[in-house]
């Protein structure tokens, strides 16, 4: 239905939400029969160039267990200056500043077009952003040089008053004291022994000596936020010295004998970084950026030994329980990740190596804190250099697209409860009336913490309808959900973004058609996929696929029109027509199929899948395929082998790769050089068209995709062939959907 598509799109643009169902089944029983849970993809900081923040703080409901924010759904008595909370029905007095409001003079937060609104917090100190570089020096010369240059370049991209620090590691871990005068000092730690936070802080001289008894001052382990520490200095002060320090970095001096890997103490290096920030700047926006060129081979968190003849674990090893270091290493990094998230900081991992680097064990560091994971072959590649540059991209206002220290608080009207969230977050363990006992994803809470996020970070939030069967539809006919995100903007100012939405309830027994028409198959596919990938972390692969297949069958049984015993009669309405395709491609995707990927690669793909917005997530599930030809403008075509034709050029976008594929005839013409002849200028334009479209994508996407330009018969064509549905094989099977 065209109108629902518009409705869905408008809501996404304004509020950053996509719901699986836009008309809600009014009872718990009926909701479970819908198969796809009631859930939404929510982008807390959805880019809104047209929404300037208001310069005051939000008005809250006075009930201590509610505290919902004043919003357009609230009933207002302008004469008595009272408002009724739409979640708990408490009547609240407007604060004195609202004395002048009336029907014709409404505050912005009551107007329907401000269902999403942002407030600025005026009070409180604004602490600077912090960037702590943790750099592996066990790299080849070219790689280290390229990395050094990228880090020097980044000093020009950082805001001048941001704090920056440097820790380098190899066999030992060095914490560099940044000073403007003369000789640079550093504190050296052994890479074999883990230290507690307190030990690290003591050894770095971060804890103040105990106060004498008479003073009775409370112990202040953290310094005043504006005071920089010796290890974290403002860019504008330290950039020249740090540029020199980076320029002078050498490869790890410890010799590596034949047949051995370098001793890399990543686990201790990260531990020291976390402890350093914990002791100096807790609860303020900070990024720990880990740059590593190989797996940790020493100390806590080691992922493989130093003998090259013993390879790093593969999926096969993990299945056979033959991954010696995995459990212990994962535990070490999980401990670090949880501590980091509790401190409000985030950890990025930039791993560039030809072999695996331990992303499987370290992934929680990025996933729990909202940090980035970038995987490349070498620091001396365009993929790393440009992906790294793009972290510092600015938005339309000239601010960074990154934000820090977010807490997301979700409130629901009484008929709904919160089952959980899936995305780059940790639970804040806030219980309350909105929290369901049935968990989907990270549950048992109505609040989560997202320490690192940007304008596209998206969480999947899952709900449960709790109304009893046959209970009447709630008065007003609509259910409501409010998302309140407190965060530190990249300008260091604290802000609060509030999104309040409502949708109609409907009785599934009499109004199933309405509910059906308002189904968002794209959102449903991504939400189910996130559930599947979440399960895949703890369940066996085949079990997850079986679960996914079962859900698809149940959905088709419920919403398909068919005559029994007649497969050809099966039909799905328009709002479901793409869903089976999505599920088909999802079950073949690298998110659920680990075959042909290393554990690190699977972790990398899953990391990006669990945080992208709907459009990008869908590209990952079912790659986009466009066909270019002389017969008309470029058009989308089925992701099927029947779309591969000799006189067409295909552009495929899988999110991680951009593939341009020339059909057989096109390739022959190109080889013959027709594009260079003036009479065949249209052929030259045809060849150029997909290149231009590819460039649009390559110029903007984070992380930067790989770029494959191939043709019929080329070895790189396998990237396309492995993705399309093989409906035409040498056996000439024609039936669609046979897998």
């Amino acid at each position: 239905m065209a109108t629902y598509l518009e409705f869905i799109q408008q809501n996404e643009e304004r509020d950053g939400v996509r719901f699986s169902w836009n008309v809600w089944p009014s009872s718990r029983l009926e909701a479970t029969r819908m198969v796809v849970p009631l859930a939404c993809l929510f982008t807390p900081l959805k880019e809104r160039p047209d929404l300037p923040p208001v310069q005051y703080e939000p008005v809250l409901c006075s009930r201590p267990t509610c505290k919902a924010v004043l919003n357009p759904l609230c009933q207002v008595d302008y004469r008595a200056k009272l408002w009724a909370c739409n979640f708990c029905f408490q009547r609240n007095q407007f604060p004195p500043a609202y004395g002048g409001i009336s029907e014709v003079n409404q505050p912005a937060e009551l107007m329907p077009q401000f269902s999403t609104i942002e407030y600025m917090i005026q009070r409180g100190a604004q602490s600077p952003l912090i960037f702590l570089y943790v750099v592996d020096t066990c790299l080849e010369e070219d790689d280290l040089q390229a990395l050094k240059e990228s880090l020097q370049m980044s000093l020009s991209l950082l805001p001048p008053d941001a704090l920056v620090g440097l820790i380098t590691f190899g066999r030992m871990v060095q914490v560099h004291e940044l000073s403007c005068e003369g000789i640079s000092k550093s504190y050296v730690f052994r890479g074999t022994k883990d230290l507690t936070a307190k030990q690290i802080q003591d050894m770095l001289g971060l804890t103040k000596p105990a106060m004498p008894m008479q003073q009775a001052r409370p112990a202040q382990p953290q310094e005043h936020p504006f005071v920089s520490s010796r290890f974290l200095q403002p860019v504008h002060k330290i950039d020249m010295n740090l540029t020199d320090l980076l320029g002078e970095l050498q490869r790890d001096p410890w010799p590596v004998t034949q047949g051995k890997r370098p001793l890399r103490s990543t686990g201790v290096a990260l531990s020291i970084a976390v402890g350093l920030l914990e002791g100096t700047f807790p609860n303020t926006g900070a990024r720990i950026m880990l740059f590593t060129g190989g797996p940790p081979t020493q100390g806590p968190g080691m992922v493989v030994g130093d003998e090259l003849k013993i390879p790093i674990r593969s999926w096969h090893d993990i299945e056979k329980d033959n991954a010696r270091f995995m459990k212990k290493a994962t535990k070490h990094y999980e401990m670090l990740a949880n501590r980091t998230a509790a401190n409000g900081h985030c950890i990025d991992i930039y791993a560039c190596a030809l072999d695996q680097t331990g992303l499987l064990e370290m992934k929680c560091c990025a996933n729990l804190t909202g940090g980035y994971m970038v995987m490349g072959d070498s620091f001396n590649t365009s993929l790393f250099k440009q992906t790294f540059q793009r972290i510092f991209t600015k938005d339309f206002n000239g601010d960074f697209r990154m934000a820090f220290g977010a807490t997301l608080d979700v409130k629901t009207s009484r008929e709904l409860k919160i089952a959980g969230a899936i995305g780059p977050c940790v639970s804040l363990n806030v219980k309350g009336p909105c929290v369901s006992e049935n968990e989907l994803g990270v549950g048992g809470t109505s609040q989560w913490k997202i320490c690192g996020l940007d304008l596209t970070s998206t969480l999947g939030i899952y709900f449960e309808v709790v109304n009893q069967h046959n209970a009447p539809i709630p008065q007003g006919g609509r259910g409501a959900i409010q998302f309140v995100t407190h965060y530190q903007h990249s300008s260091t100012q604290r802000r609060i973004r509030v999104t309040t939405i409502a949708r109609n309830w409907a009785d599934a027994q009499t109004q199933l058609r309405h509910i059906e028409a308002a189904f968002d198959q794209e959102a449903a596919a991504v939400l189910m996929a996130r559930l599947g990938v979440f399960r895949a972390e703890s369940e066996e692969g085949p079990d997850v696929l079986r679960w996914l297949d079962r859900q698809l069958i149940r959905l088709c049984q419920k919403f398909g029109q068919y005559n029994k015993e007649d497969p050809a009669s099966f039909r799905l309405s328009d709002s479901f027509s793409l869903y089976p395709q999505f599920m088909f491609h999802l079950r073949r995707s690298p998110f659920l199929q680990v075959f042909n990927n290393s554990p690190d690669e699977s972790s990398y793909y899953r990391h990006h899948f669990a945080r992208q917005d709907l459009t990008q997530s869908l590209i990952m599930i079912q790659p986009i395929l466009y066909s270019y030809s002389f017969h008309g403008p470029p058009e989308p075509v089925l992701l099927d082998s029947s779309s591969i034709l000799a006189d067409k050029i295909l552009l495929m976008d899988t999110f991680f790769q951009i593939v341009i594929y020339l059909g057989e005839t096109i390739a022959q013409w190109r080889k013959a050089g027709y594009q260079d002849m003036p009479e065949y200028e249209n052929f030259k334009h045809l060849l150029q068209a997909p290149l231009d479209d590819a460039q649009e994508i390559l110029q903007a996407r984070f992380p930067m995709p790989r770029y494959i330009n191939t043709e019929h018969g080329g070895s790189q064509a396998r990237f396309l062939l492995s993705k399309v549905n093989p409906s035409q094989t040498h056996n000439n099977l024609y039936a669609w959907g046979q897998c």
Partner: protein
Amino acid sequence: MTRCPAGQAEVEMAELYVKPGNKERGWNDPPQFSYGLQTQAGGPRRTLLTKRVAAPQDGSPRVPASETSPGPPPMGPLPPSSNPTSPPVGSGPASGVEPTSFPVESEPLMEDVLRPLEQALEDCRGHTKKQVCDDISRRLALLQERWAGGKLSIPVKKRMALLVQELSTHQWDAADDIHRSLMVDHVTEVSQWMVGVKRLIAEKRSLFSEEAADEEKSAATAEENQTIPGFQQAP
């Protein structure tokens, strides 16, 4: 925006280029976009290619609509694209660095760049710590050495000339942006000394705003002294 009388168009074009990726070190390494192209792409991202096609529900085979022909490609104009994209001046991802084919212009003189920078440093000497000035001075010397030794490429020299122009007309943000573009596009050539230029821009900017604030203050007091006619100032 940059205001360079001669050669501006050429310099701007040089800033929008695409180089191939490093195929030796990274398989299928994507092309490298210049700073100018990347900042152009900023802002709300428009994902143009997002449509999908539903599979036919009756399970019928998709018959290929066209046939291969062994002859040459058809002639005549191409049907209009539904996604009109204007290619950047330069080349698409598959080609290499495009040399700018403009009438040969004389490259900037080293003196024209170094002298204003050294002058700017002198201006800052009263306002900035000695150590910082010495550090900047050291790096300017390094720049001079590199330039004189023929170790800098022409795009770097041209953009430095532009930077110096912006600096002398107090366009701090523009000068800063040029320094950034040089750090992104030519980091190997410039990293050692560019941070000194960056600091110089920052110091000049803060000196300028201090001087402007002082002038305002003295103008305000001068006004005060003039408001009461006939009032004699105490000697």
